């Protein structure tokens, strides 16, 4: 492996892993509170479109990220109302949300197709710029991704709020007995999940591609949902999962560019084969890690 390949793989894995990481830790927060959101793909698309539109209008990519986070939160709260407030089926509502996101993002992004933006500025952080390679300087969302995962881990596992949230995901009846309000905690969890999902989409459109295109997440929302299982609902493991998948994708592209003697069809399957393999290998071990009340609507105590 030559050094150009190595640096390229590292730079490109980090870039493609970042949006996956934000999306995965967002989904973890929601699932820890007992709610599966299959509409993550739609939330990411809305984030990508809104972030791009706001950036194109204001010329400031940071405002774009903020707009994406807000839009993600707002739309995920609609989902929250349906599954928490109206007790709608989580899987069906999630899939509907995915299609809603696909349509809404197309509508939002339509006037901005083909618009040129400068994208999120690349920052050279102290220490990280030392290698002197411009390829190893990233945008702010990359630098904040791992701290965000650690922060979410801390919130979930080291605060009273997180304890209550996890209690709701394991046994909402017991949570009520402990004086907690499951629905309030679930709304908060899904709000945070939407915020992170929106940022995940914004990273794709503002930093990775600097383009808006319809359906541009291309299934990454679903990969993130698979990574939640890989990560055993733990944000710290999600870091490894996102890097692994992002790494597999960029490694196969880099190997193609380097002229590896492997069919491009097989190369393009590698990240997905890897995801499957990991799910098969970890699946049975993950069973115990899933929140006990995951996917079940809490309709109150008798």
């Amino acid at each position, binding site marked *: 492996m030559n050094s150009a390949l190595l640096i390229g793989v590292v730079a490109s894995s980090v870039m493609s892993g970042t*949006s996956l990481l934000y999306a995965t830790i967002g989904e973890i927060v929601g699932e820890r509170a007992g709610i599966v959101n299959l509409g993550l793909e739609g939330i990411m698309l809305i984030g990508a479109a809104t972030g791009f539109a706001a950036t194109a209008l204001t010329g400031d990519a940071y405002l774009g990220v903020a707009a994406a986070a807000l839009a993600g939160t707002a739309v995920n709260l609609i989902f929250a109302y349906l599954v928490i407030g109206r007790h709608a089926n989580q899987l069906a509502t999630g899939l509907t949300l995915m299609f809603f996101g696909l349509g809404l993002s197309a509508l939002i992004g*339509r006037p901005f*197709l083909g618009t040129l933006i400068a994208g999120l500025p690349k920052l050279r952080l102290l220490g990280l710029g030392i290698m002197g390679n411009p390829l190893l300087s990233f945008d702010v969302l990359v630098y904040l991704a791992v701290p965000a995962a650690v922060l979410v881990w801390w919130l979930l596992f080291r605060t009273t709020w997180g304890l209550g949230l996890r209690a709701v995901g394991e046994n909402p009846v017991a949570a009520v007995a402990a004086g907690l309000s499951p629905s309030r905690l679930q709304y908060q969890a899904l709000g945070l999940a939407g915020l992170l999902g929106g940022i995940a989409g914004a990273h794709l459109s503002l930093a990775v*591609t*600097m383009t808006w*295109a319809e359906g*541009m997440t*291309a299934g990454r929302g679903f990969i993130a949902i698979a990574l939640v299982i890989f990560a055993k609902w733990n944000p710290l493991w999600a870091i490894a999962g996102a890097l692994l998948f992002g790494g597999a994708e960029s490694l196969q*592209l880099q190997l193609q*560019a380097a002229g590896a003697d492997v069919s491009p069809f097989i190369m393009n399957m590698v990240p997905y084969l890897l995801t499957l393999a990991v799910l098969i290998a970890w699946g049975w071990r993950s069973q115990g890690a899933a929140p006990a009340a995951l996917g079940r609507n809490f309709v109150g105590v008798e």
Partner: protein
Amino acid sequence: MARKLFFLGLILGALTAFFAAAPLSAQQKPPLVVGAIFVGSVNDYGYNRSMKDGLDEMAHAIPGLKLLEAENVPETAESERIMEGMIQQGAKLIFATSFGHQQFAFNLAKTHPDVYFEHAGGWMMSHNFGNFFGATQSAWYPMGVAAGKMTKSNTLGFVVGVPIGYAIGNVNAFEMGARSVNPKAVTRVVVTGGWSDKAKEAAATNALIDQGADVVTMHVDSPATIIQTAESRGVYSIGFQSITAAQLAPKGWITGLGFTWGPFMTGIAKSVIAGTFKPAFVREGLGQMMAIAPFGAAVPPDVRTLVMASADQVEKGFNPFTGPVTDNTGAVRIPAGQSWGGDKMGNFDWYVDGVIGKAK
């Protein structure tokens, strides 16, 4: 009383008929209603934009022609319903502009024998169904000439969506063009596995640049992401599909290859109006359905002259796929004295010598 009512009725009837008829006589009936479906958005700086430009040129050339358009039409039975709706609105000519629309347009051609269909890129034919496309491969040769002259690293990068025969042929002609002016030029190929996966296109472009490519080009639906990524990394780019993509790369743009469908579409519309439509399998190259985009500021005059001379040769019938042609494993694929033309252009499953990549 009855007579009065009768006259009143008569007057009312006449008035109604007059007002109902008035809009018809005031508004001239269009000479032809044309329906067109696009697989994506027409603002893609790419394939769909080129189709839209062609249709607009046709509408401009035939005064009064009415154009019905639908974007983002999937390559499913949904497209059949959309085209059916256009026929209900009076369309007598339909342009189905994406490869996957073929079967659905053909179904309608059978049930609507009085409506004419033109499909882009396919092979099906019937008395009211023709198809057309650009002869892209030979037109890629001058692009290779441009790239071969502009590269400093002698490494060119080509992002391919799906390695179908046509796309492989484009890569081959590109590399052959580059070799014709720069024997050291190699083309590295990265396949993303889809015609429109933007994040992967960006990563693929970066991968090619990491491996030394200083000119990047592509065969995907919209060149926007790849050209912008190349521009942000400070390398040259060559566009494909629509000749409007230059504005995406003010610094690194070399040139591009685009489709110019206007004259063909105008001719077809006129033949439908005149009742002389003849179905045909049309493949036209540079000077007809394909054009070379304006050069970027970075391209010196001698390179421009060289590229235009090569384009002129292609227009006059020069075929780069004239034997002997060897593939990148050293095997002779087109023996001396033979050449590959029109019908074989979709058959490539091998890369020519100088391309770094695997075709299958």
